[in-house]
């Protein structure tokens, strides 16, 4: 507990937190995130299964907001409020998982390419550049059409097409870290590749990776909703993108059913915004030079 290393880490964490807290945007982003996480976690408690079952829907088709249905009903007479709240869970989980997958692939490729040089690096870089120029939406659509299933497919499709940016970032950082003298010293003392990568490189790229993930979640959530809107994935799953697709195909636009079209969309915007604000604030903590730019 009181070892100097611990104290040092606690100090560093405290400093980082104070810097983060100095950024009001990041702080509020965090609060909004916390609310979404809470809704996602409590969804099953707050919402009765009967509210989601079309066969037990109590409302009329596309009814405007009222005391009974605060945000009106969908084309099956279900409460849009309940659906939107329920959709939080899957939208959040898929966004997080897809971003995580993408960053894990990107970090692995980036560190390998940065650490090992030579032909391996050349091949990995070529591969990264190749994925970077791919029309990613087309690729993701094709992938989710090939693979069966719901959320898992979507996560995989987004993760597989969106990793190259973080691979490049991590590679640059790896190169910078490895150029430092202490790595050379560690090598001279007999540290193998594994030692250098896990003891030195990984810890120093991790903060960057963390920030990158936070920013990537926003992109992944938009990507997820786009794929759902195009009708990919399991349409029985309730997500915001899927709700908007149903709204689009049931004539809600013509009907002027704003209570059906707006809530899921606004939820997407808020969540993406929250992740972006938090990401930007974290970036500031990591790179003080950025602070005045924000």
């Amino acid at each position: 507990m009181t070892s100097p290393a611990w104290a040092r880490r606690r100090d560093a964490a405290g400093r980082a937190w104070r810097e983060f807290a100095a950024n009001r945007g990041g702080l509020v982003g965090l609060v909004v995130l916390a609310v979404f996480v809470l809704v996602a976690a409590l969804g099953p408690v707050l919402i009765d299964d009967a509210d989601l079952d079309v066969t037990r829907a109590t409302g009329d088709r596309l009814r405007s907001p009222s005391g009974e249905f605060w945000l009106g009903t969908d084309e099956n007479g279900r409460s849009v409020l309940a659906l939107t709240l329920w959709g939080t869970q899957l939208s959040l989980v898929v966004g997080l998982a897809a971003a995580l997958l993408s960053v894990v692939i990107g970090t692995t490729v980036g560190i390998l390419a940065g650490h090992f040089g030579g032909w391996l690096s050349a091949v990995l870089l070529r591969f990264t550049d190749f994925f970077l120029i791919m029309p990613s939406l087309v690729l993701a659509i094709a992938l989710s059409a090939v693979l069966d299933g719901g959320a898992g497919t979507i996560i995989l499709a987004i993760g597989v097409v969106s990793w190259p940016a973080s691979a490049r970032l991590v590679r640059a950082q790896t190169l910078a870290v490895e150029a430092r003298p202490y790595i050379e010293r560690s090598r001279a003392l007999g540290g193998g590749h594994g030692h250098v990568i896990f003891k030195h490189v990984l810890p120093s790229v991790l903060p960057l990776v963390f920030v990158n993930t936070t920013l990537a979640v926003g992109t992944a959530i938009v990507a997820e909703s786009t794929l759902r809107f195009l009708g990919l994935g399991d349409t029985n799953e309730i997500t915001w993108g899927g709700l908007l697709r149903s709204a689009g195909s049931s004539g809600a636009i013509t009907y002027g059913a704003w209570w059906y079209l707006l809530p899921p969309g606004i939820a997407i915007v808020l969540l993406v915004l929250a992740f972006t604000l938090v990401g930007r604030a974290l970036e500031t903590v990591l790179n003080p030079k950025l602070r005045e730019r924000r």
Partner: protein
Amino acid sequence: MVTSFPIVEERWYVVLVGRRLAGAGAVVALVAVMAPWVTGVAQAQDAKVLRAGVTQDLDSLNPFITVTRIGTELTRLNYEFLTTYDPKDYHPVPGLAEKWETSPDKLTWTFTIRSGAKWSDGQPITAQDPAFTFSKMMSDTAAATANGNFTQGWESVSAPDDRTLVIRTKQPRSTMLALDVPIVPKHVWEKVTDFKAEPPLPLVGSGPFIVQDYKASQFIKLKANKDYWRGAPKIDGLDFVYYKNVDAEVQALVKGDIDVMNRLVPAQYDTLKKDPNIKLNTGAGRRLNEILINPGATSADGRPIGDGNPALKDPQLRRAIALAIDSRTLVDKVWGGYAAQAAGYIPPGFSEFHLPERTRFDPAEANRMLDAAGYAKGADGVRADKQGKPLRLRLLGHAGTNLDEQASKYLTNWWRDIGIAVEPQMVSDQKVNDATTGAAFDLAFSGWNANPDPDYVLSLQTCGARPNADGKGATPDSFLCDPEYDRLYTEQLQETDRGKRVEIVKKMQQVLADRATLVILGYDNPLEAYRADRWAPFQTQPADGGVILNQQGYWGLYSATPGRTTDAAAPAAAGGSGGGNTGLIIGLVVAGVVVVGGVVLLVGRSRRRGAADERE
């Protein structure tokens, strides 16, 4: 560091950010102001052009190739067939052939081609034209692509003189007055060597409208054929305008950019009830929606294929599954009332062949049947099959299709009530297609658009419709292979007395219901709308409760008459639900202000804080 820049770059920047922005802004503003006025003028100029909205892409303008709905509609407008279907009740009526007779052995058909009719390039239409068309389809595989099935089982085609066409068939065929084959002009097509190629525009045709111009995914323009033998259409032209988004299409109708459209969904249809300028049209469904029950599918050579649950080989189980479906609830809840309750296999839109006996909904009876047949209920309420395994079935549906997604939830509940556990799987259309052709399903959603002649939809349930061992080479439906059904099918195909044929077809529908390899869910009504302030009522087909677009013929569009449709119903009466745009705008403004304001506040504050830090 560089301290100065050549003047070029400065100018580049100034131009880009300064003037271009101002210029672009001015152009946009100009466009926004001017354009409505310009298009308004354009519309006034050609009030006699009917504009129909269309969503489906055209595969080809070649009448031998096109298989899409829109392509078929275009060939009907562009080329007169030998015979066509009456606008009132679909019975065959003269087209290019003004009369016909059959030999006593029913193998030789002699059509008399009307005299005086002309192609749109002025050449006379003779019996040589259909003779050429049919012989090409029999000799050239490319020419048989779209309509080759019509000339199957034919012996020969000849034109002994310019007004007589003689067709000899190998067996008697009841479908000889339902030859949906566009007849092309011989003098144009005999020079063609590649029957797959696109024909040059404008087309040369014999129908009421001739295709003049086509831009993929934008529009198809047709001109009225002033020499049309029934008389020139009352309008000058007909445009099909593409909309990929049906809501955008509805808005275009409301705004007057198009005049008529179909394929509305119930919410859109209900919304348009409030618009006094729009007249709505609906009729009896011509599409059958069904659940396939895999009866232990076999391939064309009789070997088992696919992975259907073997328990479904028992007809009693299949009948119980059928009994547990409540079509009435589906009509009310899933189709919003715009559908007809399930009865016979042939949809009610073709009332002559439709078997009106409604399918029964009786879960108690289904339970009794299953109890009697020895399917014992387990502790979890799921019955066990004859091998003692719990009855768990997959239900395959099309992702993104409203019917499949919603009905699957009702069906699952109803089947749970009779002790069958069903898991719905919604996958892409392509996957459903692959699985149903290869029999890789237990239960699956399917559906067909029927024709005035029932032969094709009936043929789907014959042994001959089964695929080869790879699940390819045919278009199977329920994999029924039943001797009685097949015998009746051949009988109806050879029965040239219409009344007797109707009786056979009705009997076939009873057989289908009894075998229970498929269950009808219901028939959705076509929902159409047109501008009542610009057009007189259209001729629907059938006359009572029929459609305007997508007919089995050209009657609706041919009847287009500029004018007005007056409606006794008070336009405001239908109001009630629907928030309209006021609610939307209020919602948007509130949401926008909250979100933007919040972010602005946050970003601004943190920055102030940042600036303060800097000063320290």
